[in-house]
């Protein structure tokens, strides 16, 4: 079992706020790691630290056995890391296909335009956006924009995919189809970290779960272990609805 990504003691402050403290974990290749925690727990900040948007002040991040702690986001992308954004960031005035081609051209495979266009069409087919390939990205609805984020990330053919709340705002049938998509991505051998609030989904698809609360990693383990973990339940008591969802899993 090779370790794809390894975090050691990662900490990040924003002014007086300790956004992340001493986060440490190893992520083996081919797994899905679920990242959960109450709102404001630092999940997206952890993504931003991992992919170089806000490099951490302390700790080390290793990706494919290279240190990437202080590298820029494009360095991460070129080494084979891709992500989606919680708040979608489409390139509005470019077509859907061109958006996806950017992912293929500038990811770690450095495809040329011709290949990128083919990959874009494949990936758009895969996420179900093929009929909209020639539309401007700005004209998509939110659910479609989430799929576009996913398509862009996949077109890079990354080793590691960071998914930030791809299920939020989707209706139950859309959630089911997105979960199927995530599982099929894993079948392609891509390692995934996913931030998710939809507990049922994240408990079902994840091999392991990591729980953050106020930037502190309060638990890590299999979904079954997490569901029984007292600290986790306690952390979620501030958010009874989520605690309820969590308990329903048992």
């Amino acid at each position, binding site marked *: 079992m090779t370790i794809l990504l390894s975090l050691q003691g990662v900490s990040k402050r924003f002014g007086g706020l300790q956004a992340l403290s001493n986060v440490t974990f190893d992520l083996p290749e081919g797994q899905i790691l679920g990242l959960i925690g109450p709102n404001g727990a630092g999940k997206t900040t952890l993504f931003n630290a991992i992919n170089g948007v806000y490099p951490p002040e302390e700790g080390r991040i290793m990706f494919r056995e290279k240190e990437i702690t202080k590298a820029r986001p494009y360095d991460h992308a070129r080494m084979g890391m891709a992500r989606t954004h919680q708040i979608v960031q489409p*390139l509005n005035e470019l077509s859907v296909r061109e958006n996806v081609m*950017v992912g293929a051209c500038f990811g770690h495979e450095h495809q040329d335009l011709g290949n990128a266009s083919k990959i874009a069409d494949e990936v758009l087919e895969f996420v179900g956006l093929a009929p909209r390939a020639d539309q401007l990205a700005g004209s998509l609805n939110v659910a479609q924009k989430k799929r576009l984020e996913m398509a862009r990330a996949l077109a890079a053919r990354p080793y590691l995919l960071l998914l930030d709340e791809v299920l939020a705002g989707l209706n139950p049938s859309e959630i089911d189809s997105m979960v199927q998509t995530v599982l099929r991505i894993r079948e392609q051998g891509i390692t995934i970290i996913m931030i998710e609030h939809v507990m049922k989904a994240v408990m079902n698809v994840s091999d392991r779960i990591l729980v953050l609360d106020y930037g502190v990693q309060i638990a890590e383990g299999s979904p079954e272990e997490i569901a029984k973990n007292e600290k986790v339940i306690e952390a979620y008591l501030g958010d009874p609805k989520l605690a309820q969802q969590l308990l329903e899993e048992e």
Partner: protein
Amino acid sequence: MKLWNRYSGLILPVLVVAALAVWPVITGKPANRESAFTILKAVALASSLNILLGYTGYVSFGHIVFYGFGGYVGIFLLTEKGWSLWTAILAGGAASGILAFLLGSAILRLRGAYFALATIGVNEAMRAFINNFELFGGPTGITLNFSVYRDFGGAAHALQTSFYIGAGLALLALLLSYIVRTSKFGLGLLAIRENEDAAEVMGVVAPRAKTWAYVLSAIIPGMVGVLFFFKNGNVEPHDAFPLHASIELLVMVMLGGQGTVLGPILGAFAYQGMRGYLVTSPIFKDIQLSVSGALLLMIVLFIPAGAIGWLRHRVPPLRRVLA
């Protein structure tokens, strides 16, 4: 058919520039040649600016600095060092490219209006500096020795040759614009324009791409500067770095449609044509600036995507031809 698909976006721009180059030859009037030269110069400058403004999304209010700086370097080499016009033009382009590379590494870190302000500052600082720079003749600038025209068979022939070089540079500018627009590098620039942070997350090395875009947008203006001041017979700080000319270039790009190959060409055509009409019209000639201003305001307020952008949005099948 495949070739047509591949190069269809290039056809209209090339036709426009070719028509401009041929028009004075057919009509045989020197006055037409001067008008055509003015438009070709505007085409070359606006198309170059479009690489930075239209493709990369960085608003430069001082782009004329590359025209002035390149022009000065070229004319200096031509008169003081005895270089030929050709090598002087190449050297002017190279000098502007290097200046853009050095500047770009610093000021392209600034975004939005801060970048725009910095470009104004750079232009004004350069103008003031050249004004004090004795090697370039200080406030009086450099005047060409009449003998340089002799190699071309006299001043009249030199003007004729300048016109053809001008047409060549305009063609070069639009080819460059087209190549950038349809390349992988260009796709990276478009991604930066739309959302620089997202582009970086997808692997676009934005600092490097922006700097090269800046360099590419600076080279041809530098060459045009050398040619223009050669034709003009002298260069002085006031003519080399006019801030309002930078803004006129922005207007041309905006008028035709930023981010398209054809847009800046049509914009240059329309703007110079309108100016030509207004300056000579008995009704408008005194207030031509105000009329231009009012028209610009209308465009900014009501069709901000420019003519080509507007057409592309309204008539999607035209998108391929109107690249």
